């Protein structure tokens, strides 16, 4: 392939990536968008050039090419097994893992380039060294950070781990890393460079762990989104180092869109990103302070009573939370919604921006249960009309309906936008027990006069509701 045509192909590929991300932003075109981006990737692979401008596929076949094919096939198999076996509830973990692999690959590619240059005789310019160091650093911390995020979402040490002076220690590690990087920028060749480089690599891996450990499981989506954009930037830096424009464009697009996505998520939780990363949310006395101010008692209710309320309501709003997904109750919810719909009840689902474990996760879970997406209403759209809702059914959601966010200045979630379930005529909270939510905060909603608690496994309760509604 001529070296004049390839840059044109890469321009086309860049357009495909941009269109792909663009299409991903509307539910009608999203699937096409993903396929468009995948097509771009395939075309770019065929037109892959080496640093000297020759096609990577035009050289003689060596053992290295056999390794490339074997490695790609192994990766394909791992990826396919992961992608098709993962439960929809575990989607955030899967994204974290894939992201970590990408970050690890970016760090390895940069390391290999760096080591090659370090052993070479020619001096290397900072324009090449800096991107390599950047990719190594960011890629490796994205790798280790993503794995910690994965483990936290799997329920391993999901509580924040903090100790006094932690931020200072992390700051010091970061300074050492930057110092090593600075020194390497000007001393990129020779044995000392290799030693310093390995030290930097190891410290960056450790820093990824140290950065994510203090952050609570509830904030992992933000962390994953941030690490996703980090990996993008690392890939772009690799593109600089090995002169691959497709990698620069793709990596930068992911880096900048990922940064914006991270900020959007933080905005949905009404917390600055610095607070998420360094705040060690929910670890201190905030929870106990909030619990003391609650007045009122918890009033339980039975399923057949709830069924009557639902069956004779005009408008019902369902607030689904991660607890619903854990109980695998999505299909039962849809059945209940269909059953009520048949009786002429208007049923809507109120989706909090951070419902589930990451923004949009709940939409995926409900889509899996065949709930049409036009029945899902976003928080801002549904809140103004909550006064006119007869029954609000809160299923396995907790923090996103906690009025403490509005009323209690001492609460750690004060100021977070919530679905204002407490304003509905009747609120039914379906819950396994009185345990606190993911953020570890008492919920004022449970004690309100218009709230009734339906205790039990969400799926069993919903099935009882469906049967009772059918009978009434």
């Amino acid at each position: 392939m001529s070296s004049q045509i390839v840059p044109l192909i890469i321009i086309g590929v860049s357009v495909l990536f941009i269109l792909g991300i663009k299409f991903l932003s509307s539910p009608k075109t999203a699937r096409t968008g993903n396929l468009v981006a995948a097509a771009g990737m395939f075309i770019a692979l065929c037109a892959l050039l080496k640093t000297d401008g020759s096609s990577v596929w035009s050289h003689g076949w060596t053992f290295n090419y056999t390794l490339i094919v074997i490695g790609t096939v192994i990766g394909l198999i791992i990826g396919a097994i992961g992608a098709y076996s993962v439960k929809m509830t575990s989607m955030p973990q899967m994204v974290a893992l894939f992201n970590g692999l990408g970050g690890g690959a970016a760090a390895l590619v940069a390391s290999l380039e760096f080591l090659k240059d370090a052993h070479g005789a020619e001096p290397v310019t900072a324009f090449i060294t800096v991107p390599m160091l950047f990719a190594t650093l960011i890629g490796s911390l994205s790798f280790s950070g993503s794995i910690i995020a994965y483990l936290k979402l799997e329920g391993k040490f999901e509580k924040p781990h903090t100790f006094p002076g932690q931020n200072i220690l992390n700051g010091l590690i970061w300074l050492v890393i930057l110092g090593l990087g600075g020194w390497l920028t000007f001393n990129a060749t020779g044995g000392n460079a290799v030693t310093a480089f390995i030290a930097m690599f190891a410290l960056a891996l450790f820093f990824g762990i140290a950065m994510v450990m203090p952050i609570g499981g509830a904030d992992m989506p933000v962390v994953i989104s941030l690490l996703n954009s980090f990996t993008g930037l690392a890939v772009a830096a690799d593109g600089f180092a090995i002169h691959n424009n497709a990698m620069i464009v793709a990596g930068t697009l992911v880096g900048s869109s990922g940064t914006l996505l991270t900020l959007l998520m933080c905005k949905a939780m009404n917390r600055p990103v610095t607070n998420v990363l360094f705040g060690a949310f929910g670890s201190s006395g905030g929870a106990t302070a909030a619990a003391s101010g609650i007045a009122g008692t918890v009033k339980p209710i039975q399923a057949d009573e709830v069924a009557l309320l639902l069956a004779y309501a005009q408008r019902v709003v369902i607030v689904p939370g991660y607890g619903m997904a854990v109980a695998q109750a999505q299909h039962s919810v849809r059945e209940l919604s269909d059953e009520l719909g048949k009786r002429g009840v208007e049923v809507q689902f109120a989706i909090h921006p951070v419902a589930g474990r990451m923004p949009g996760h709940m939409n995926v879970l409900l889509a899996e249960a065949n709930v049409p997406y036009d029945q899902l209403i976003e928080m801002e759209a549904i809140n103004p009309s909550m006064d006119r809702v007869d029954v609000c059914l809160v299923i396995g959601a907790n923090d996103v309906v906690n009025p403490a966010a509005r009323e209690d200045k001492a609460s750690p979630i004060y100021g977070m936008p919530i679905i204002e379930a407490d304003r509905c005529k009747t609120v039914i909270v379906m819950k396994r027990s009185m345990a606190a939510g993911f953020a570890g905060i008492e919920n004022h909603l449970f004690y309100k006069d218009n709230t009734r608690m339906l205790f039990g496994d969400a799926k069993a309760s919903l099935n009882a509701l469906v049967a009772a509604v059918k009978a009434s």
Partner: protein
Amino acid sequence: MDTNILFIFILAVFVGFEVISKVPSMLHTPLMSGTNAIHGIILFGGILVLADADSVLTQVLGFVAVIFGSANVFGGFMVTDRMLQMFKKKK
């Protein structure tokens, strides 16, 4: 140093911001997963370094990079497609 590369970089930063500024939060998860797949282009980096590998160490590291990158790109696109095929409008 080719300044054209910097030029591309700066433009891509702004395009990245612009294309997702209007994404509804219902699509944040697929979007994160989709962009995650796009940075799987690092597979190319892995292929390039492995193609030039000249020692056992570089072959091993390059091989690992190719596996990682390949899992990222294929797994990423497949899992995103699996999510998005479920988004349907009312029958």
